[in-house]
């Protein structure tokens, strides 16, 4: 961070004193991280942007309750985590009731950035990683995303999630092992399909 830029707590004080336009600095500072987190959790980049908007509105609304202790990042990721889990639960309910009513619910595939910005190989690689991420239990997925994509320490993850450090260590360790298995399984499947196609030819 640029040393000339005010820190999060100073900006929040300024917003609460009535200079609401300063909130835009916080949005610029955290939007990429928030969208990355939500997108990795939901596997839907368009939806991630929409949820991120609601997250920032909620953050603004809850600014008076933030206790200034230089942990604004934990404060906002806690809100982002809760809102994302709410969205995922709503999705699960929609799937459940759709099946109950005998309707087919098409769960969206991982929605990428516009196709022209991604080459097919990169799109396939992203899809593979996202499929593996989606197969993880929610708590493992949260811990792994916060560690790998947002590069937070176990202590920071603890502030966001409320889990103990040993639990976080176990969750991340299990998540990595599962990811390793899933990725190698997908690679084996891809090799098998390639071989089968070659034999057909």
């Amino acid at each position, binding site marked *: 961070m640029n040393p000339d830029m005010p820190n999060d707590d100073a900006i929040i004080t300024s917003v609460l004193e009535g200079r609401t336009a300063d909130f835009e600095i916080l949005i610029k500072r955290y939007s990429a991280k928030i969208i990355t987190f939500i997108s990795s959790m939901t596997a839907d980049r368009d939806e991630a942007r929409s949820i991120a908007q609601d997250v920032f*509105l909620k953050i603004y609304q809850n600014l008076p309750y933030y206790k200034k202790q230089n942990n604004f990042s934990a404060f906002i990721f806690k809100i982002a985590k809760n809102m994302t889990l709410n969205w995922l639960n709503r999705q699960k309910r929609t799937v459940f009731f759709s099946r109950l009513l005998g309707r087919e619910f098409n769960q969206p595939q991982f929605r990428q950035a516009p196709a022209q910005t991604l080459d097919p190989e990169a799109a396939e690689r992203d899809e593979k990683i996202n499929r593996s991420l989606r197969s993880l239990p929610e708590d493992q997925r949260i811990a792994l995303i916060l560690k790998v994509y947002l590069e937070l320490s176990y202590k920071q993850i603890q502030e966001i999630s409320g889990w103990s450090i040993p639990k976080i260590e176990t969750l991340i360790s299990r998540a990595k092992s599962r990811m390793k298995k899933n990725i190698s399984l997908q690679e084996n499947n891809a090799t098998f399909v390639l071989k089968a196609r070659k034999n057909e030819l």
Partner: protein
Amino acid sequence: MNCKKVRMRLSAFQDGELGLQPARQLKQHLENCAPCRAELEALNQVVDSMKCMSPIAVEPAFPALIMSALQARPQRGFRLLPSLAYTLALLMIFVSGFLLEMSANGQPPSAPQPVMTFSTVLTESRNLGLLAVQDSTLELFSGGLHEN
């Protein structure tokens, strides 16, 4: 440290979250153990492949979009109204419950009690035919002499 313990803490070691002493012990083990080194390499590949994901581009208009949405929202003061309404509703429920309870017991809070005097007892008794009371006797007691 044996291989089992090393595998359990390998991920934390990779994340740089182990203390100095355990990290040194784990490093020593890795120098002499090829399978554990391979396991660490596999974990590195997982993390690298995750980090290779295409970065998410945030549209330049995104912050301005949120700011305009914020300005379109009602001020915080208006948000207090629902909670005030809930409090009033709860208060009304409590008060009506209290009143219902009182009426069920048949004891209105301020029902006036009749004052019994000796002269009223005599009058009532004469009216019912229980006693033959002379008017002069009644007059004698109706001068404000109350029975305690």
